[in-house]
């Protein structure tokens, strides 16, 4: 059952996310020819998807928390 405290916490996160986004709009835009390093697999999120899948679901079977980076992926009866 949702608590009032949980709803207040979610509102704070949303405000935090908006503040981060608003702050980023003030940065100098990075030009396409400057993105060579960012294009490397090592600089992307979840470049090795099989590794990420193994790791995330091993942790979700041994700990109470789970998820965060994506949606879907199937069910888990562990917790």
């Amino acid at each position, binding site marked *: *059952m*949702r608590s009032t405290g*949980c709803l207040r*916490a*979610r509102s704070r*996160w949303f405000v*935090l*996310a908006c503040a*981060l*986004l608003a702050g*980023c*709009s003030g*940065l100098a*835009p*990075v030009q*396409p020819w*400057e*993105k*060579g*390093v*960012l294009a*490397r697999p*090592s*600089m*992307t*999120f*979840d*470049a*090795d*998807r*099989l*590794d*990420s*899948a*193994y*790791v*995330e*679901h*091993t*942790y*979700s*079977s*041994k*700990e*109470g*928390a*789970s*998820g*965060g*980076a*994506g*949606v*879907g*992926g*199937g*069910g*888990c*009866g*562990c*917790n």
Partner: protein
Amino acid sequence: MATLHHSLLAAAALLPLAPCVAMAETAPQQGTLSYKYLDYQDRQPGEDRVGIKAHAVALTVPLHESWSFDANAVTDAVSGASPRYHTQRLTPLEDRRNALGVGLTRYFARGSLNVGGNYSKEADYLSRSLSTTLTWFTDEGKNTALIAGAGVTRDEIDPTNGIVAGERKAVYEVLAGVTQVLTPADIAQVIVRHVRGKGYYSDPYKAWDERPRERNASTLLLRWNHHLEATDASVRTSYRFYTDSFGLRAHTLGLEFEQPLGAGWTVTPLLRLYSQNAASFYVPYNPGPTGQTFPEPGARYYTQDQRLSAFGAVTVGLKLAWEVNPAWSIDAKFEAYRQRGDWALQGRGDPGLAPFDARSVQLGVTHRF
């Protein structure tokens, strides 16, 4: 000695891939086929517990100019023993699980849309899910990407011990986020995810386990990748806050340092720190004359599952990868995990639980075509 099919642990050990929210700007130019093997073993003092051997394959194929197709398949074998309550009465288990996932992505000038599904089957557990993720660049320079996703999962649970039959669970999730290029050497991401789940959440293979039939959760994920020019390394940092209606609160901090070594080799040491408090209905170890701990009289919900107690955990690991040539690469990863009640940052760990350790090894090969 009876053998229990502890499929819930098997299902938990390995699940199909979820659509990732990476910042892909265009359809992939190449196809990739990857295979990865997992060998996992956990233990408590004097006893091996669960062992898992898994094989996974993932395929990504570009279709025409603006489409890509991805598929993955997993099979895993679980064996060993699992506690019936707290870290007591280790009971043998074995199971096998097979799963398949597919996805289709359409790339537009300013974003992409992915739709995917997963199917997982084992002796006592069936899981099916559908999901969609939209990524949209707000600027022509593609420095800011908004992310929105939604998914639904429906599970059917029929434990082999007959404690319950024909149980179901439905989980709905949504996420929203933003990926932002900060500098030529920095990219960051913020994702908020909300989950609503209804149905059977108890563990039928555990004694004294009765959980609410609703579990709502929220996560906040912050990720930052930084290129360190001095050594040409990629430093990946992440923080996740998790909270749910079971009363659980958890913090996760991750750090990876991927360092190129030359000739296509990279080495990546990693560190992960985790802490959670106990679920509101966790029953601490407090055995009576029979050696069992009983819930409070009249308690509606209760669990003696170690995984819902308060604890902290540390993972240290090392990954080594070698790009043999532009078409082939191999990788190996080793991780050691330690979980302790008295490492909990929040709440008080259960001193009656045995310490928990795990190690895992991954071996992989990738072909680009």
